[in-house]
């Protein structure tokens, strides 16, 4: 089968390695990735800032880009998929062509872990990662998309991986997109709590499914000089694979 | 001003909802089904357990034991003054007489509030009892005044098993036509100071519930 890649602006700028590994992993699982090069940003930052009219323009572009084919869309970011699934349809009046396209794309756009588990029926992808790992549940993935078990199932199937519980795993890390720069001190306090919990867990790595959370948490761990790695789920699942 | 405001506000509400005067009412969505109950013995035990969990005291009692239990209560809580509901059940149990015998001054229920607030013990019946939450429901009228269960530091409620109700649905079905109902679940409490649970803030510090083992 084939799938379109929705790489997201943050992952493109900051985590190209994750995107490369996503491609290699999908190919290994029998999915031929297609990359619509016209894509830019889904518009979430503008939408969350209240600039819905501006976000609508970006949504139109996004829908143009991904409706060129009927293929499902896969993305390594829960919040971007949540944008497409929940907010895109509401940006267009019912009955308009844009609205139909939004509804259509909403029905076939998936976050990576839910794509693996539900669309591909894959849980054990043959990954080997013999380390102590803990999992942070990104808010939009968890509460927006209802993806709760899938990343855990995938992690538990990784050979050698020891999954440790994280206190406050479902509590926001303080990223919140524009929130982190609008109210940096509150974001700082929330990040501090998250970092403390990660350090208390005893894990060598914390895994999440959203570039925003990862930027925030990785930066927070870096600032306290912690050796704990912040990794995307895809990096763990692709471990052992060559990406060239 | 208020009459004019009434029209202004109701018009504003109707306008906001795009409704017109005399528009019909949609059907109110359903509440959940009432609770199914177990046997009376189980319900009574549940009631007693739940009251204890709330730091209240509850026990089954037979009429012949009341006298001694009352003496015990008076002694334990050093009761000097008491006030009772004017109720046939409480009279049949001879409570006022027994209290007097114990040296407790029995204050009339119609006394002024200052006097009532000096009572150590208030004795009432319970019109309803909800086992799930250890709750007593008390209606109110001239013979069953409100302050008896509120002002004294010790509240004794004597109830018959017939007061049991399955849940709020049942209580409400009966109580909705009355002018006053108080649901009491344990002693007065607060955690306002550093989340430390403290009993006896404004209402009674101790609540005792005696469930008569007969419905006589």
């Amino acid at each position: 089968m084939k799938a379109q890649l929705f790489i997201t602006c943050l992952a493109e700028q900051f985590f190209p390695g994750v995107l490369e590994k996503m491609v290699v992993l999908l190919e290994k699982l029998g999915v031929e990735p297609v990359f619509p090069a016209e894509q830019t940003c889904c518009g979430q930052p503008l939408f969350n800032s209240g600039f819905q009219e501006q976000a609508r323009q970006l949504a139109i572009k996004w829908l143009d880009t991904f409706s060129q084919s009927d293929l499902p869309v896969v993305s390594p970011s829960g919040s971007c998929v949540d944008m497409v699934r929940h907010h895109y349809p509401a940006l267009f009046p019912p009955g308009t062509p844009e609205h139909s396209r939004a509804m259509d794309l909403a029905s076939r756009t998936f976050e990576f872990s839910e794509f693996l588990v539900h669309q591909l029926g894959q849980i054990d992808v043959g990954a080997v990662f013999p380390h102590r790992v803990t999992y942070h549940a990104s808010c939009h993935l968890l509460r927006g998309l209802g993806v709760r078990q899938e990343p855990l199932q995938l992690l538990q199937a990784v050979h050698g991986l020891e999954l440790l519980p994280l206190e406050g795993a479902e509590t926001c890390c303080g990223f919140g997109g524009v929130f982190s720069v609008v109210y940096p001190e509150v974001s700082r306090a929330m990040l501090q709590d998250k970092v403390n919990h990660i350090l208390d867990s005893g894990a060598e790595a914390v895994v999440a499914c959203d570039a925003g959370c990862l930027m925030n948490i990785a930066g927070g761990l870096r600032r306290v000089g912690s050796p704990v790695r912040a990794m995307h789920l895809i990096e763990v699942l692709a471990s052992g694979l060559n990406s060239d | 001003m208020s009459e004019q405001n009434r029209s202004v506000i109701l018009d504003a509400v109707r306008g906001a909802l795009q409704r017109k005067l005399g528009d019909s009412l949609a059907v109110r969505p359903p509440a959940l089904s009432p609770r199914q109950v177990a046997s009376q013995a189980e319900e009574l035990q549940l009631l007693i357990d739940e009251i204890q969990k709330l730091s209240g005291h509850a026990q089954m009692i037979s009429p012949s034991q009341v006298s001694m239990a009352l003496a015990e209560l008076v002694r334990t809580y050093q009761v000097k003054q008491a006030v009772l509901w004017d109720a046939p059940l409480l009279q049949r149990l001879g409570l006022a007489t027994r209290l007097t015998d114990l040296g407790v001054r029995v204050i009339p229920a119609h006394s002024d509030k200052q006097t009532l607030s000096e009572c150590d013990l208030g004795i009432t019946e319970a019109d309803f009892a909800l086992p799930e939450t250890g709750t007593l429901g008390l209606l109110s009228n001239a013979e069953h005044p409100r302050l008896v269960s509120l002002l004294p530091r010790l509240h004794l409620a004597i109830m018959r098993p017939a007061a049991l109700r399955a849940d709020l649905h049942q209580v409400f079905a009966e109580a909705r036509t009355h002018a006053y109902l108080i649901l009491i679940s344990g002693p007065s409490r607060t955690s306002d100071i550093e989340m430390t649970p403290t009993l006896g803030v404004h209402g009674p510090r101790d609540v005792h519930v005696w469930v008569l083992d007969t419905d006589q």
Partner: protein
Amino acid sequence: MQKSQLQSSEKKIPHPIEFGAYSEHVPGQIPSALKYATGRFMEQRAACLDELPEWEALRQAGSAIRLHTLENLDFYLEKLDQQVIAAGGQVHWAKDAADACEIVLELARQHAVKRAVKVKSMATEEIGLNHALQEVGIEVVETDLGEYIIQLMGTGPSHIVAPAVHLKKEQIAEVFSQEFGIEAPTDPVELTAIARRVLREKFLAADLGISGANFLVAETGTLVIVTNEGNGRMCTTLPDVHVAVAGIDKVVPDWESLSVLLKLLPRSGAGQKISVYTSFITGPRRAKDEHGPSEFHLVLLDNGRSRILQDPGGRETLKCIRCGSCLNICPVYRNVGGYAYGWCISGPIGAIFTPQILGVQQAGELPFASSLCGACDEVCPVRVPITDILLHLRRRVAEGDAYEPAVVATPLRAAAALGRQALGTGWLYRLGGRLLPWLQIPWLRAGWLYKLPPPLNRWTKVRPLPAFRAHFRNWWKRRHQVSTGDQP
């Protein structure tokens, strides 16, 4: 420090609520106290929910009942009015805070009131009633222990259910010592005993009892008050006149509705299956020899609620039953406390209620006081879609809508449009991706960016930014060329 902000919270606020400015200097005691208290509430709530498999069904029923009531509010308000009057009570209608205070002041004048006792009521905080009564020389005593304490301290509540939760017992002992001229002990049990004695005298001496309402039952004109301490009963039984002030959104259709809502409220807010006291009051006492007030007055308050009702995107705000659960779960609230929200209602519900009542000119920072994590939506017992409403209000602030013009200045709106152009123009976006790895060099250290210039300094002052490295497209092209190159 918070005093002026809170005194002004009692009156109409002329200046904007500065959530940001406050949040930059939160006294350390507040987050630690709040995290402890809210943590306990949530543990207790979880224990209650464990015993209640029908919790989700109850939430759905509660939400449906509340929404139905709002959608037929005119009918229910008229019914309530009719029933309260039939029960011997009086109903007063207040368009706004000034009306409501005037009504209560007039009642106080008629009855030559000197001393009033109050049950905790958000509606009375909203209208600044205490201040209005005190200005004409009436003593107003808050009787909920937490409210009493903060009244003595001259500050406002930091949490809608547990107003003094941020204070240490030593601080409380200090204020009791000052107030009563004693050496107050720091033990909570003893402090409570002092308050009991003092407040009992107040209850007995009061001419007027003031309360809010947890619910107003239209079917019978019944006022429902939920407390744990007993002060609700005291205030509504001892004084000869009882005034209840409540928003028009407090109406419920009938007693049957209460069987749902009263299962939701105490569990959600305080983790109790039921509160210690739930009073159901229908009109004044019926006969002279009964206990209770001889006069019962209900003041129905609009104060902007009918305007919220008009906006389908904000209407569900009014479903709120004021349980406090959203505060308890909110990581933003737990780290800043109630004062940051600048008005009587704080936390996620405050962030949506306040801007809709006061307007986004004054309260435009509040819809942004959230990371949109959605935890509040999950715990709300009546399913207020708080996150959706926050986004709805952010749009009002940024772009304006049918209800209010935008707050955001034109330059920022222009910047947003430019930003969208850049993000939405493929070649420009890709060019940016290629340039940034070069432009970032002055701030780059070992793969991270430190101390970036504004506006990105708002990020780097908290933690470094990973380096810009948009090389996926090149990698894809190379890989694709290689594989197409291999095709026969």
